[in-house]
């Protein structure tokens, strides 16, 4: 069919000549939040996964309950790139308020599926248009008016499945999982999918070049979000006390933890081996964590920027009084309330020194959902081994979006409960001094309240204290404790998760990054190689204080690009505090901080500019 538009004809020609775009495109589903599109989006994502195609989903949603625009991006990528793609080739337009803008954002040759009365074909003549009477189809299969808003979403899943040639059977089995044991709900939803599918088959002529074809790249893999993975990590680390205050985007960490605890951690007598407390605010949440950690429990909280600010004073107490605790910070856009439903990596510097006075906290930086699971577990062991609050920094993108992953491994080592003296130990020793470095690792031994020994007790305080935990304002005694704490921090360099050498080709150019930036950077480095023939090395940082390998990496490269999702180059700043001046001068920054998950093209673009390519 001639359209008179060269771009469209070229794309259509590609489709006709079987130069199809297979398993390598992005779908933008534009809806109104509160319309219940979440489960439809999830079914579509999992159906592509079920076709064996690597896939990722990004939920771009407003800080609002209902009525505001929201977008869900699904990227299918045969090469396994899971970062956000800057442009989406396919649009599903269900929100009249944004439909015109959304369709304008499509590249020429893209495809738009939309409610027919939106008439998007009048706005763009260079995209493939598929008008669908969603409301009519929905009304025909769903007599109950109240449910139509929800069911309509499943109709689009059917239309998309038919156009992209996704097996209806795969969609069906995804729906069965989603609505396990709810036959009626399944019937209604699958009925909607089928209605959409049939409508598309009978009424739409496939002209665009985009296809999903079966692959075998997801076999054995799982799909999970980072917050659920953190929660799972906490449960398999044997967490016993969880105190928290609801805050986006960290809320689902505790929801996941709590669900699993209720499933897995109830005795045959029906008693809980855990306590989850929704505190009155974040001050109380962290206070409870420290009280519980002091009394010997494995305690954690999870929060986000504003909550973290409230926890500041307590975190200084935890550091100075040397109390274990795990704090998961799912970063969002700051400062202040900022953009609560958007992503950023901008808490790094404030967490590193969270408190007044000389304070430094260890930070773990998971770069994948698997590491969310593993590093959350590690945080509990490290907190008790090092007797200090340990922070796990993720972000909204990692935490709230779905990621494919290898299945998680069961922990290989038993729990490390750190240095705790029992009554028997005290009988043997005769006495102990809480903050005395008897092992040369700057970590003293502690006792737990309730230890039945006359010498077990000590006085925990945030005021000046000596190595016997007695109050002091003596200059030498105060300084001795502070010096030991500094030494303890130094010993962590070799104890915390080591950095990962992602690419090593002995290039003169190096890259450093952490967290959710990883997937976009990996893709960008492939782009740089493909387009410019340039190799670059990449070391992914997984903890602060920095391991010696990070210093060696900088020493071995002429130019080191630090890629991070904040304005102020926070990781680069921390590195500069750590590195010798000559090496600090080698650092250059690539920054992304508009609230959207970083994409490969943005990194590549900034690199090309700075290199003058």
């Amino acid at each position, binding site marked *: 069919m001639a359209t008179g538009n060269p771009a469209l004809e070229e794309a259509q020609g590609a489709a006709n000549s079987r130069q199809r775009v297979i398993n390598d495109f992005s779908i933008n589903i534009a809806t109104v939040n509160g319309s219940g599109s979440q489960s439809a989006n999830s079914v579509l994502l999992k159906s592509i996964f079920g076709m064996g195609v690597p896939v990722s989903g990004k939920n771009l949603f407003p800080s609002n309950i209902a009525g505001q625009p929201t977008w869900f991006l699904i990227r299918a990528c045969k090469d396994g790139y899971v970062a956000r793609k800057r442009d989406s080739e396919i649009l599903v337009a269900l929100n009249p308020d944004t439909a015109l803008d959304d369709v304008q954002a499509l590249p020429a040759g893209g495809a738009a599926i939309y409610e027919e009365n939106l008439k998007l074909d009048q706005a763009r003549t260079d995209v493939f248009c598929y008008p669908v009477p969603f409301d009519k189809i929905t009304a025909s299969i769903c007599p109950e008016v109240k449910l139509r808003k929800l069911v309509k979403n499943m109709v689009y899943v059917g239309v998309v499945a038919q156009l992209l040639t996704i097996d209806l059977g795969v969609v069906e089995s995804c729906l069965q999982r989603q609505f396990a044991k709810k036959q009626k709900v399944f019937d209604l939803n699958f009925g909607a999918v089928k209605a959409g599918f049939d409508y598309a088959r009978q009424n739409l002529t496939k002209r665009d070049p985009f296809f999903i074809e079966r692959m075998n790249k997801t076999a054995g893999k799982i799909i999970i979000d980072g917050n659920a993975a953190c929660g799972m990590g906490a449960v398999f680390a044997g967490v016993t006390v969880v105190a928290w205050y609801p805050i986006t985007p960290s809320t689902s960490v505790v929801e996941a933890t709590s669900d699993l605890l209720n499933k897995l951690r109830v005795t045959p007598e029906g008693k809980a081996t855990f306590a989850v407390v929704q505190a009155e605010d974040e*001050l109380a949440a962290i206070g409870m964590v420290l009280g519980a950690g002091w009394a010997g429990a494995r305690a954690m909280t999870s929060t986000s920027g504003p909550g973290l600010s409230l926890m500041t004073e307590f975190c200084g107490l935890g550091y100075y009084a040397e109390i274990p605790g795990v704090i998961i910070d799912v970063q969002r856009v700051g400062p202040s309330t900022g953009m609560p439903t958007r992503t950023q990596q901008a808490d790094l510097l404030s967490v590193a020194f969270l408190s007044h006075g000389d304070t430094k906290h260890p930070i773990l930086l998971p770069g994948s959902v698997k590491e969310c699971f593993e590093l959350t577990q590690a945080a509990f062991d490290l907190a008790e081994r090092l007797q200090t609050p340990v922070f796990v920094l993720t972000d909204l993108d990692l935490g709230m979006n779905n990621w494919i992953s290898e299945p998680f491994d069961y922990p290989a080592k038993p729990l490390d409960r750190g240095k705790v003296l029992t009554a028997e130990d005290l009988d043997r020793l005769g006495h102990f001094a809480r903050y005395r470095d008897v092992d040369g690792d700057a970590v003293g031994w502690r006792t737990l309240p309730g230890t039945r020994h006359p010498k077990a007790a000590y006085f925990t305080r945030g005021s000046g204290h000596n190595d016997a935990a007695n109050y002091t304002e003596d200059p030498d005694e105060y300084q001795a404790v502070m010096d030991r704490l500094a030494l303890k921090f130094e010993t962590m360099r070799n104890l915390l998760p080591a950095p990962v050498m992602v690419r090593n080709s002995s290039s003169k150019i190096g890259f450093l990054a952490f967290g959710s930036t990883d997937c976009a950077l990996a893709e960008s480095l492939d782009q740089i190689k493909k387009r410019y023939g340039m190799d670059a090395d990449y070391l992914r940082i997984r903890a602060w204080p920095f391991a010696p390998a990070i210093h060696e990496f900088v020493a071995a490269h002429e130019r080191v690009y630090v890629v991070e999702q904040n304005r102020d180059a926070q990781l680069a700043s921390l590195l500069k505090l750590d590195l010798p001046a000559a090496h600090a001068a080698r650092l250059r920054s690539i920054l992304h901080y508009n609230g959207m998950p970083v994409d490969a093209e943005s990194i590549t673009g900034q690199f090309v500019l700075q290199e003058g390519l």
Partner: protein
Amino acid sequence: MATATPAPKVNHIGLPILDYRGGKSTLCAGCGHNAISERIIDALFEMGIEPERVMKMSGIGCSSKSPAYFLSRAHAFNGVHGRMPAISSGAVLANHTMTTIGVSGDGDTASIGMGQFVHLMRRNLPMIYIIEDNGVYGLTKGQFSATADLGSRLKTGVVNDLPAIDICALAIQLGATFVGRSFSGDKKQLLSMLKAALAHKGTVMLDVISPCVTFNDHEGSTKSYKFMQENDEPINEIGFVASFDDIEVDYDSGEIYEVEMHDGSNLRLRKLLEDYDPADKANAVRTLMEAHENDEILTGVFYINTEQPTFIDLLNVVDEPLATLPESMTRPPKSALDALMAALK
């Protein structure tokens, strides 16, 4: 011939009172807080509480220093200003088998710590919360606190023009299940109240008027020794018979409100205020409000409820402390992880 030294008196678990003492107080001579520390020592000794089975909690301020001055053989946590409730909550969750005594002040509780105080009371967390209440900030040299009475005067002549927070009325409304007020100078009443507090299961909130000899013991203060001696109006006389005491007392049941405590002890409140029923929440709050109108300082046990489930009951946790559960009870088996992974494929 030398006379033999008499064996030191021991309590019913065989410990002398020396084992309940703390470090030397660094508070001002005559500070009411020191007398309260003494009564805490007496109560723990007389109740035969094992010192190692107590957690001493506090916030910041003169009051919050005092856990150092009693029971050296118990673990203590002197936290941050106004946050003793959160730290205590965490500690109790970790180990609910302990006796937990928190010491706070009127500033630490009724100003900076009000948010946490409110929620601790609401949860009926099993612990004793003592406010050493002198109406002023001592460590910063004598500013009014939020429990200072309307019209009371600082040494500098400044008059308090804001109404006092009645922390007892508040605690009753919020859900504390044992609420009383005493005076550091009333040895007998305070000791009986503390002993009964140790026998209670749930949140005990005791507001103990404790004169500050340096900043608030002058004419015009309503928290001075003299003012309290002249205006203290006990609503009941507290008799406490511990579960291990074998005492029979005859009394007129019409005069006495008797409570069987959680540990089997008996609390006997002799009514001094006509028809005062300490199980009646609304009446308790009204009585306290009316006393304010009449410039009276009521003391005694205002409210008691031994039926209310504690926060630990509500959480339905195992009997053992969560802190020391073995790995076999806290880390689910590999089969559990395998099942979770299978469901995500």
